[in-house]
């Protein structure tokens, strides 16, 4: 059975806790943290289909966290969810590799659908890397 796994990162504990409850009720495997540093540690410990990341956070903000996460896990599907994102933030995040930017409050069904798409995209990338590796091995053997 496929279960989408998602990491939610937002410094508003009540917000992230409630969003997690709602996503779990929709069958997702959800973990949450309230800062970028912990998010980086969580992503090291477990493979997530998607990370839903807030922009304005104490310490490492969303953009800084996104940079580190993508450096460590280039295939990670990161969705920005912010209450204060400017057009400039959205453009920067997308350029850096975020798959989408949502403004709070967002429709949960839309967000869950995006996470499902993120899982499909991550699996496709994983498959592509596996095929590339097979190609590389075959080429190196002269097959």
């Amino acid at each position: 059975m496929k279960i989408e796994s998602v990491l939610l990162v937002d410094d508003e504990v009540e917000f992230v806790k409630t969003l997690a409850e709602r996503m779990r009720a929709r069958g997702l495997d959800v973990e949450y943290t309230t800062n970028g540093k912990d998010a980086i540690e969580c992503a090291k410990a477990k493979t997530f289909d998607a990370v839903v990341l807030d922009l304005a956070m104490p310490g490492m903000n969303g953009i800084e966290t996104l940079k580190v996460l993508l450096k460590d896990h280039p295939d990670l599907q990161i969705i920005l969810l912010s209450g204060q994102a400017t057009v400039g933030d959205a453009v920067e995040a997308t350029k850096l590799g975020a798959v989408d930017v949502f403004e709070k409050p967002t429709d949960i069904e839309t967000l869950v659908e995006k996470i499902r798409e993120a899982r499909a995209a991550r699996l496709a990338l994983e498959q592509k890397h596996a095929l590339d590796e097979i190609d590389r091995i075959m080429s190196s053997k002269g097959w």
Partner: protein
Amino acid sequence: MSDSKSLQTRDESLAFFGTIIAGQSHELTNVLNIISELAGLQLDLLRAEDQGSPVNLPRLQEVAARIQKQVHRGETIIRTINGFAHSADLPVAVFDLKEAIERVLFLAERPARLARVELVSGLPPESIVLESNPFCLQQAVFTCIDLALQSASDIRQVAVDYVLGGDGAEIRVTSADHLAQDENTDDRMELLRFLLERIGGSVVKGPGEESSGILVFRVPQHHGGESEVP
């Protein structure tokens, strides 16, 4: 004060006003976003009932209590912003020192949180009624806190308190870390002196002096009003 200094101070005051309002509007947005998610959670629970699950009344009541808590948080933000905005109504007003500083502490909570600094209130129970410019006083306190936040490095704790006496009060902003001594600090200190000039106050202790983590300034109880002693 020269015209250029006066204009500079006005620009700085407008920037201060903008910083506060922008920060609090973000806080209010956070509150509304939480309420939106909690309302969504309630709907989820009610929809579950439509699908045959029994009504989980305790769960619904728990979510309602969480909504009420956020409503209360939103009310506090609005009341504080309103008080702050009205503090700019008159150049001289009669106001409570403790209330004015408590308001600044509330408004500075967000920048402190984003800077990962703990803001500690050490305000004594006693207060005095000032006849002065409340907006200038609040800006002066915020300027000191802002300076301390920007200097925070290791311990990351800033405390605010005051001591009454000598027909006025000494307001102290104490950083657990040393205050930076750079161009930004010089600019902030210059602004602080401009502001204090407007309320008849003066800097008692600044960066680079004995206790390098402490900013102290003094304000008289009466300045610019009818009760001012010449």
